[in-house]
């Protein structure tokens, strides 16, 4: 299918997933609270969307210790960046086609 919509990615339909990917495109990594501050969502909601993106291989999870406290941060994989850019381009095409 070569029409305009073909590049639109179902994975990025949710606003929260869109937000997570946007943050990770301009930041090397971001932790859970960072997403919460920027996107203003509930913990459970955010966690499930992060999990979904991770399972699709679009983001990766980095666990480390800061002092004694465990800290989980997320970063975009190359595949995630590629797919998100494709998605952005399709959004733009869709608008420009009007």
């Amino acid at each position, binding site marked *: 299918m070569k029409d305009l*919509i073909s590049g639109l990615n179902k994975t990025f339909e949710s606003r929260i997933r869109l937000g997570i990917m946007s*943050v990770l495109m*301009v930041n090397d990594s971001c932790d859970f609270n960072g997403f919460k*501050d920027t996107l203003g969502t509930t913990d459970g909601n955010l966690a499930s969307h992060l999990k979904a993106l991770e399972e699709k291989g679009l983001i990766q999870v980095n666990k480390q210790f800061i002092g004694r406290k465990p800290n989980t941060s997320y970063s975009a994989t190359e595949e995630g960046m590629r797919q998100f850019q494709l998605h*952005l381009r399709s*959004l733009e095409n869709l*608008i420009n086609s*009007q």
Partner: protein
Amino acid sequence: MDSITNSADDLKTIRKIMEESSRFLSLSGLSGIFAGSYAIAGALVAWLFILPDHPAMDNSVLRFQLIIVALSVLILSIATSLYLSGRKAKKAGKSIWSPVSRRLLLNLMIPLVSGGCFTIILLFRNDIQLIVPGLLIFYGLALVNAGKFTYGEVFYLGILEILTGLFAALFSDQGIWFWVFGFGILHIVYGFIVYRKYES
């Protein structure tokens, strides 16, 4: 039609999130105006009260008094900008201590601390004439470095501070006027532009 308005909304959200998560936008323009005024007031104090009493430049009392004035200007400027930026962040429901502000601070501090150490070395070596040029150049480099993480205007302010510093090095017996221009007038103009553009 519906999917097109949706796409436009999506893109708008994406752009906003990218900007907010990579730039510290709570920096207050007003604090630039205040910092500039402190710098001019400091220069005025030095020019009216300190310099006339000590015609000879290699005087340790004179040097001590000038350092106190410069430090007061620095501390007042930092305090005002922290207070005003904190207030602006609070109004927008944001925190002043975030990954972005930490990155901004780190990138600002590396050239700034180097400049501070360099100035102290100059003081010990008695190279008084290069202090104002050095301060301006290192401060400009710090702003250029930090400009990526806040308003683009900070980058251009940095370039102008560097140029002012280089000219100050060329005419190093006129340090006080380059101080007034670089730390005073440029800050006020910058603060005014940022305030008009983002805060009113």
